[in-house]
Each structure stands twice: as C-alpha cells, then as structure tokens.
C-alpha cells in the first residue's frame, strides 16, 4: 500500500464520489442509477420516476459533491501546509484564527436582515471570507518581529485573537432571538447553499491557494530542518513562510465561507497520509488534498443519511468519526515502528 500512494488515494476518492452520488435522503435503486448514467451518455429521455432521480442527482447531489470536494481538498491541503510550516503535529488550518474570524463575520451578518437578492444571499459567506482573511492579516501583523515572523509569535497571536473573536461571537449569539440555531448550525459546519453558484464562487480562490501550495512542496521540505538550516540551504524563510501562510489561509477562508467550520479534516488527513506514505511534502500536499476531499465526502454522506431527511452538521460527523479513527491509526503506526 505504501508504494502506490496516488493510486490508492484516487481510488478512495472515486469510491467516495460514487457513494455520494448513490446515497441520499431519497433512495435511488442501483439499477436505476445505472440506467441514468447510461441514459446521460446516450442522450436518452427519461420516463418517471427516472426523470426525478436524474434531476435529483444532477441538480442537487452533483453540485453538493463538487462543493464538498473543494472544501475537503482545501482543508486537507492547507492542513498539510500548516503542519509543515509550524513543524507541529497539532497544527490545523484554524491555528492562527481563521475559524474564529470567519465565525465572527458570519454571526455578525446573520443578525441583520438582508434583502432577498444575489448580494443579500452572499452576505454571510462574503463576511465569513473577509473575516477569515482579516484575521490572518491581523495576526500576521501582530506576530511580525522586524523582518521575521517567528512561528511561536504566530501561534500566540492566533490563540489570543481566537479567544477574543470567539467571545464576541458567543455574545452575539446570546443576544440573538431568531438566528441562534442558524448560527450554531453554521459554526458546526455543513453545506448551507445549494447549486453551482457556491462552487463557481469558491473555485478561483481554491485554485490559486492550492496551486501555490502544490508548488511549495520543496520549500516545506527544507523548512523541516529548522529556520536556520533552511536559510543556509538557500531558502528565503520569511518570504516563503508568508507566501505559504497566505495561500493556505486563502484556501481555508474560501472553504469555510460556504461550509462553515469543519474540523479534523485539516488535522487528521495530513497525519494519516504522512504515516502511510511518508513525510515528503512534494507528495504529501497532493495526497492530503485528494484524501481530504474523499474523507469530507464520506462524512457528508453520513451527515446526510443518518438523520434523513434532516441533516447532521458535517463538523459533528468529522469530530465523532475522525478522532477514534486517528487514534487507531496512531496505535498501528506505533506498533509497526513508524513513530
């Protein structure tokens, strides 16, 4: 299994996609599923009930799968980048406060009644996105020491700002009358807006963010030796760190703006990939991106079906399932001497 990382991860992703298409609150028999796929390829018209099933798959499940794929990819990739940047196994994409900033932005806008228009509906995701990025800039500015940005400072500033933002968010939630459930639901994570709109909105930012990260594999490998060693090996540490930080934060901000705060993907997926396939960041970043997408897809399937027709927030599923699974992988690795 260690020798064909891309094959196995892509296989996992494909299986996850198939599960997501096939499973939902409306039961579509596998035979009908096959007929629909064949029908799409041959351009045939569908009789009922196939027409409804085809509509459900095309207009409801596929856009959602795309959004969840992108979110999982962003979280997995930026999680790997953060772990490489901070050389800390507990690092996740929310380390320097992206989650709390996004949450504050979202809850702040939820307390206002927006007009029913394109921009009115974009208010909450836009505010979450802006909140997340503003937090990163603020924390970065706070942590700068002359020309360098020590990682310790970043973490401390991030934790401090997170506490502040979380306190403000909690206060706003206490004061709200009707929006409390909506705020909690958003903070726990889950796809709130359907259709291709969110996918297309999020795609450019993810492409840029993840694109930069994929090119930073070598730099992250060098950073593992420590700042001084990396500098001596020819890497401009501060500039690289800033670039990777911004790219990872951009991807995370775009991911959380529509999907809320989904935890554990950015923490666990890179770890598992590292345990199974080694710590070479040139490979690890891509594997974490693919793996993150697959894991979040599976979590979303569970979230959609466990309480159908209601939906469990995805963040709950990732937390409940992710932690025990990670402990199991850790134990196996310990026994086999990878640690």
């Amino acid at each position, binding site marked *: 299994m260690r020798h064909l990382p891309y094959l196995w991860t892509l296989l996992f992703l494909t299986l996850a996609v198939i599960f997501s298409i096939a499973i939902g*609150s409306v039961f579509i028999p596998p035979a009908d599923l096959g007929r629909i796929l064949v029908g*799409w390829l041959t351009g045939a018209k569908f009789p009922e009930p196939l027409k409804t099933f085809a509509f459900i798959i095309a207009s409801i499940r596929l856009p959602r799968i795309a959004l969840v794929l992108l979110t999982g990819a962003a979280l997995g990739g930026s999680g790997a980048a953060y772990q490489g940047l901070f050389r800390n196994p507990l690092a996740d994409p929310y380390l320097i406060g992206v989650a709390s900033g996004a949450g504050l932005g979202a809850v702040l806008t939820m307390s206002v009644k927006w007009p029913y228009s*394109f921009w009115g509906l974009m208010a909450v995701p836009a505010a979450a996105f802006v909140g997340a990025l503003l937090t990163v800039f603020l924390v970065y500015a706070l942590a700068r020491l002359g020309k360098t940005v020590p990682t310790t400072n970043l973490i401390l500033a991030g934790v401090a700002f997170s506490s502040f933002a979380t306190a403000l968010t909690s206060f706003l939630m206490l004061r709200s009358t009707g929006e409390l459930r909506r705020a909690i639901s958003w903070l726990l994570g889950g796809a*709130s807006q359907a259709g291709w709109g969110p996918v297309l909105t999020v795609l450019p930012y993810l492409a840029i963010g993840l694109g930069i990260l994929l090119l930073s594999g070598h730099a992250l490998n060098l950073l593992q030796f420590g700042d001084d060693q990396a500098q001596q090996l020819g890497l401009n540490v501060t500039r690289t760190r800033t670039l990777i930080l911004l790219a990872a934060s951009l991807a995370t901000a775009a991911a959380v703006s529509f999907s809320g705060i989904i935890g554990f993907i950015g923490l666990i997926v890179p770890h598992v990939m590292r345990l199974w396939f080694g710590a070479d960041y040139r490979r690890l970043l891509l594997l974490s991106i693919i793996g993150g997408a697959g894991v979040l897809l599976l979590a979303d399937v569970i979230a959609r079906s466990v309480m159908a027709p*209601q939906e*469990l927030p995805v963040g709950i599923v990732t937390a409940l399932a992710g932690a025990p699974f990670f402990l199991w992988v850790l134990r196996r690795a310990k026994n086999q001497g990878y640690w």
Partner: protein
Amino acid sequence: MSRKLTFAILTFVLLLAACGQVPKGGGPARTSTPVATSTEIPTLTPPSDTSIILTDDLGRMVTLASPAQRIISLAPSNTEILFAIGAGTQVVGRDETSDYPEEAKHLPTVGGWSGFSSESIVALHPDLVLAADTNPAELIASLENLGLTVYRLPNPLTLEELYLNLGTVGALTGHETDAAALVESLKVRVAAVDAKVATITERPTVYYELDATDPTKPYVAGHAGPTNFVDPLITRAGGANIGAQLQSEWPQISLEQLVADNPQFILLGDAAYGETPEKVAARTGWNVLTAVQTGQVYPIDYHLVSIPGPRLVDGLETLAKLLHPDLFK
C-alpha cells in the same frame, strides 16, 4: 527579482478572480444551472383568469396557474393553517415539528429543526412549498433554483395579521370561502373576549416563563415582536406582561427583578418540558413571590400561544379564563 514578479502576478490574478465574481444580472435564479440534458425546466404559463399572483414575505412575486394541489409545509404554523381551512388533503409533505392536527402526522417529512432535504422535497413533486419566517432565505433560494414555487408567509405581529395570513393561504389553495368563514368565526370569539376584557378594572401582572433551567435567571416573554405572540395575547386577555419593558423578545430576567415585580400570575410555558407548580414552589427564593404563595402558578400549553395559526385564539381564550376566571365562567 523573480519572486517579486511572482507576487505581482499572483496579486493581479487574485484581483481578476475577485472581479469575475460580480454578477451580471439580478436575482438568485442565476446561481445554478442543471447539468444533465434530461432535466426539465418548468415553463412559465402566462397569467390566465384563474392564476394567482401574490407577493410573499421576502418581496418575491409568486405565480400559481391554479390553486395548489400538492403542497409541502415547512413549518408547523403553516400545517395548522392548511388543515384548518380545509386544505389538508392538498398537503403532501411536512416538516418534523408539524404534529397538529393528528392527520398531519401521517404525512411524510422533509426535514425539521436540523435542516431540510431538497431531495425529499423534490421527490414529492410539489406545486407549492409553503415556508415561514423560521426558514432561512438560503433555503428559499435553493428551492427556487431547483424550479419549485415557494411562498413564505410572514410572522404576524397581531391577530389581524394572522387573519391576513389565513386569507393568503386560502387564496393559494382555492379555499378562499373556507378561510373567510374561519376568519369570521375567529373574529367572533376574539370579539367576545375583547368585550369582557373591556369591563375589567385592573390588569393583573403576568410572568410567562419560557425556560428556567437556571432558576436565578429564567427566560421570560419580553416585548411583542415577530417571534413573540405571547405578549400581545396576554395584553388582549386582560393582563400585563412584566417582561414587556425589557429590551428583547425573549430576555433573561434576574430573580431580584422578578421579586421586585412580584407578578400575580405565573404561567409555565415550559410545562411540556416537565415544569410543574410544585417544582416552582420548591425553587430556592421563589416562595417570596405572591403568585407562589397564593397558588396562582399555572401550566399552559405553549403550542396555543407560540404557533402563529388559528390556535392562537384558543390561547387567547385560555389566557383570559386563567386571568379573569370570574368573567369567563
């Protein structure tokens, strides 16, 4: 040098991407495009003599070619209204929290307090989805993008606005006469209560409890608003809500404030969750309240005063009987 160039290019591309997000035309309808060719885009029939055109709570103009025959209700208030005006047979789906009347419980559910499933809604082939204030605008937009007709009823602030809602649902379902008859009967009952309440000389002070998990800081009914119908009902039933001066619709009140206000009646809106007059009397510090000492602590079915449907009038009558038992034998 090349690093600076990279930075510049990236910033430029970022700005381009941001600019690309500006929409080129109105409304939420542009945000989704079905992929497969076999999906059907509903055709817009031109308004005919039987068509119904109404503007909903979000300012959207909703058009129905004929009265809706397959309705999905996304809130318990809508379900109650639909069944009350005789349109129960036209309802094909409901949300989990719609449990009144009994017939409604047999309908399939499409979601509830933790979100709705667009798939389940679409699979029921509705011609109208009746939403309420509790359903967020994002859900309405998603359903609209899937080609469904959605109408969101506003939350009434007064009983008169409730009558308007009944009329609207009557128009949407082809039960205008039934809805009008229901409104008339409700008006008669309310007028009877108003007449008797007009004769009272003093208004007893009332404390309506929402949640007292922390007995030193219980949640009470505050001032009237879109989510608080209890306050106007108490006033109309001849009482004075002690929470009416507080800043929000469902605020917390400290025990000190409660003792200072010393209400004559305590209404337990959380009776359904196990609160009883005995438990209230046993709470530390609550035995100094007049209402506890004189036994004027009553459980009340919160459905009668919280769901903006015809049962609000039942709630009004119940409150009036509790507050002025001598007038309402």
